[in-house]
């Protein structure tokens, strides 16, 4: 199960990269990166998964005393939340850029923004 998720994650990353590199439209590129980010998040979750264990929530179902043996690794799960938040921030920033760029040239084609070169 975990390997399936991880493989899916990597496939999503590759799809995202492919999309970002082949689409010239700024918005499509941003969406492609979001897909790649989702892939990364899946991979992270998959890394933390341990076969046959339960969610790392210590309550009536899992006692604190034997939690070490029964729950999966909680660290990647905590980290993935942070990563998602950061991803949202970067995506928002990119969208703001796309908006501003569209305002300046009335186009979303990345190939049109090449005055700076060499």
């Amino acid at each position, binding site marked *: 199960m975990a390997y399936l998720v991880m493989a899916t994650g990597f496939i999503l990353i590759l799809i995202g990269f492919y999309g970002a590199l082949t689409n*010239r439209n700024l918005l499509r590129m941003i969406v492609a990166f979001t897909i790649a980010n989702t892939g990364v998040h899946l*991979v992270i979750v998959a890394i933390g998964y341990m076969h046959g264990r339960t969610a790392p929530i210590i309550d009536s179902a899992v006692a604190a005393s034997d939690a070490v043996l029964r729950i999966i690794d909680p660290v*990647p799960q905590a980290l993935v939340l942070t990563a998602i938040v950061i991803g949202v921030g970067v995506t928002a920033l*990119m969208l703001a*850029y796309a908006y*501003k760029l569209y305002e300046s040239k009335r186009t979303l084609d990345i190939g049109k923004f090449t005055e*700076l070169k060499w």
Partner: protein
Amino acid sequence: MVNALYIIAAAMAAAFFLGLIKEDKRGLAYTVTLLALAFMTWVSAGWLWAFAVDGVLTVEIFTAGTEPPFAINLRMGLAEAALTLLVNLTGLLSAIYLKDTLLELGRRAMAVLLIATMALCGIILTRDAFNLFVFFELTVIATGGLILFSDANDDGRALSAGFKYLIVSQVISVFLLLGVLFAYHVTGTLNIDGMNGTQWALLNGGAIAFFMMFIAVVAELKPFPANGWALDIYESAHPAFSAIFSAASSAATVFALDKLLLIGGADWLPVATGVGILTFVASNLFALPQTNDRRLLGYSSIAQIGLVLTVLGQRDILGESTEFIAFGLLVSHSVAKAGLFWLSGLVAGRGLSDWSVIAKRPLLVFAFVTFICMLSGLPPFPGFYAKWDLVRLLASEGRLALLALILIGALIEAAYLFRWFGYIIKREAPAEAVVCVAHKVLPVFVAVFAGWALGFVWGELSGRANLLLAIPLLFALSFLLLDWLPAWVKNSIAIVGMSTFFYLTYPGYDPLQLIFAIIILVGGAITLLASYSAHGRRVGFYPSAMLMYAGLAMLIHATDTFGFFAAWEFLTIGSYFLILRGKESEPHALSYIIFSLGGAFMILAGFAIAADGSYHYLIESLRQLEQPVAPWVFAMLAIGFMTKTAAIGVHIWLPGAHAEAETDVSPMVSGILLKAGLYGMMVLLLTMGKQQLYGVELTHVLLWIAAITAFLGNLMAIFQEDAKRLLAYSSIGQMGYALFGLALMNHLGWLMALMFVINHYIYKSMLFLAVGGVAKRTGTRDMYKMGGLITLMPFSFVAVLIGIIAVSGVPPLSGFGGRWIFYNAILDSDYRLPMVVIFLAGPIAFLYLFRLIYAIFLGQLKDEFRQIKEAPFWIVLPQMIYVVLLLIFAVFPGIALRRVDEYLTRFFPEGGLGWATNQITSNYGYWNPVAIMITIGVIFCTLFAWLLFVNRKAQKVKQFNIVFSAERPFRPETTHFAWNFFAPYRKALGFMVQPFVTRFWGGLTELLHSTADFSRKLYNGNGQTYAFHFLAFVVVVFFMRLGV
């Protein structure tokens, strides 16, 4: 100490607090921002003081009250304190610089600036891998935000650059995040030191995890070729932001990479080296054809960080010196680059020559000079000490290819930086004035101050003599503070200072050094008399001239290779600034500094190879060098010294540099500066003597070079129309003679060389002053435009007459003594063929010398010059002193040479001269200067009287008593006898003086330029291409490191 956590807390709190301030209370918001940044700076500075001065130990800061790996920990140590100080100070100064912009943009922009500074501090402080990722992403977001706000020209260009940056950083963040998580998976910890403790990197999966983290952080350092986005940011963003991006971001990222390399271990060092050196060389090369100032600075920034990366990659051999070297290069880069970016905000135009507006502001010029010297690794800045140790250690471990690449890259960088400086000083300034407002100028001068202060600190840390404490250098630098005084006051101080220094140091010299010391210090003082003719303040002249003299004085005093090399660099920079002062000297000064620095790098490498890693290496120790290193060291040092004496092949800088220099500068750079090269050669030959490389006697090679230099130098001199160029080419020939004497490696050869050293100083200074005086009065240096000046400028005539008699080596003047010793020396040696060549050079010298006096002083006076007067008094006075000196030296050569002769016996016991009261004997004959003087005097007087007698009835030909066959010549000057004076000789020998060497070096420059111009098309401006570059970079590095 204030807990370092407050650096982060203060920035966060202030940023949140800004949100509570009303939008229109911008002054308050700005004050809060400045206070927060000032507080952060103060905390870092306090820690730095505690570590550096009080000797406090490194502190671990545990968050959440738990030790790692269960919570994030930060670390504050010496390096962290220094770097956070750098980051916070850059942030603070940029905020001050951005005052107008921030007040206009409001609190949001201020909050972003605070977060950017905080995030960079976080990257430096954190010891947790995931936390590192978070701070990197914060940096990305804050950087993106700042670019969004700081669109400098409001034309959307910065926007596209920012978006390109975000695209690449998205890809980078994927790699970093995956790398961190897999590393955690393999090691079970997120703590960087915890990861370091395990041998996990050896496992295959671990290696890939590490690779992903490594490559992501490396990518943030803008490695070649995955750096197009960074260049676009540098070019388009607000300069204050670029200052942060270049100085602070790079410093923080370099430190992050250093932490990672600790985990990766020795296996990853070559990767860092490879990426670093490729970036260094390629970026410097691509910077060559740049015309936009900020893009050029961008290329230079990337290159410098590449060099720091290279140094980190050499940790295996640099060992404990790594920090000293890496930090030396890093702070030099950061301070200088921040300063230059801030400075660029004061200049309206974006072309390199638009910067000429600052030429009118000496303080800004001084700032610029400080920055480019820091970047070029010149003394007394930290980069110099770093470069010295880096080269020393690389050479001792035999990593010579890397060493060569570093020096080539550094030379290219110095070339484009100094070319830029030439534009600033020499190009026509555009109409817009410099924007000089206090809050924009302050950061620039804080950077200047920091640069000099760091130079002092590195001097103290180096464990060598602190260059900023050397008396001659301090004397030269004090003229920077005195520059507001009138020129004559400064001139007097300079003359008194040099004389006093000579008086105080006089007892310490051996006879060889004494000759050079007299020429440099006393001779320099006499030459300076001519400078009294200048009026006004002459801003910049005295610091440059005194820097050159300080370098020369330190050169003679140097006992170890470090001091020698530092002095060599000082005299090179000083003389470069002097030469650049000439009217048309921009290209010549540039070629001078490039050749000189190239030569200096040869010397540096030669010393480093000789030292074989030892920390203090005395010049004396060169004596103990053995095969197979010795001949190579010898060759490198000799080539380095010969660039200064302008031996054939590396001579092309000299004619322009000496001819275009100001009237009183030409004698300094010709009569005095050239001696530095000869001094170097003497030191080299005295210590290393004869060396054989592949069975070839190297002194024999030198002999040939010297003979050809003398021959071709003289030959080229005869075809010059420009009197100062003629003298300059003649110097090439004269240096050839001196070098020849040294290369003979016998007693008389050396005596002859020393005779040439003294003579050349006297007569070349005199001739340059005389010709310079004439040029000043006539307004031209072309000899065919002069003529008949003998009656109008009698003193100059006498000086030139005496000068050419001395140069040509006919009796009775000292030149004859030189020749006499020379011929004796040749008879003592067995090299027949080069001897023939150098014999031929003699008569050729007669040709150009005759032309000099004939074309200028004899013949018909031109109409337009009927009213001109003798040259100014202060230019004539030193000439007359030289005339007297020449006569004294001609009659009593023994006063200088006798002691040297005895001294030389120590090294060459055979073949000394016999010194009777007024007769000097060799194995082949004798020379009696007094008798010769009397004989020649009698003959001269007789002939002169006879001439006067027969000339009584001569008819005077009037000037217009000439007919051009009833035609008006198309170009009247071409009918002048003095034009193309030696046309028949040119027909016969002209093929030998075709500018082969000039064409070779020109072709090489052209090749570099066109390669760079072609290759930089790689950066096509498309964000997707840049992302692709990065992925390709990842794949290539991966296969090179792990794939095999």
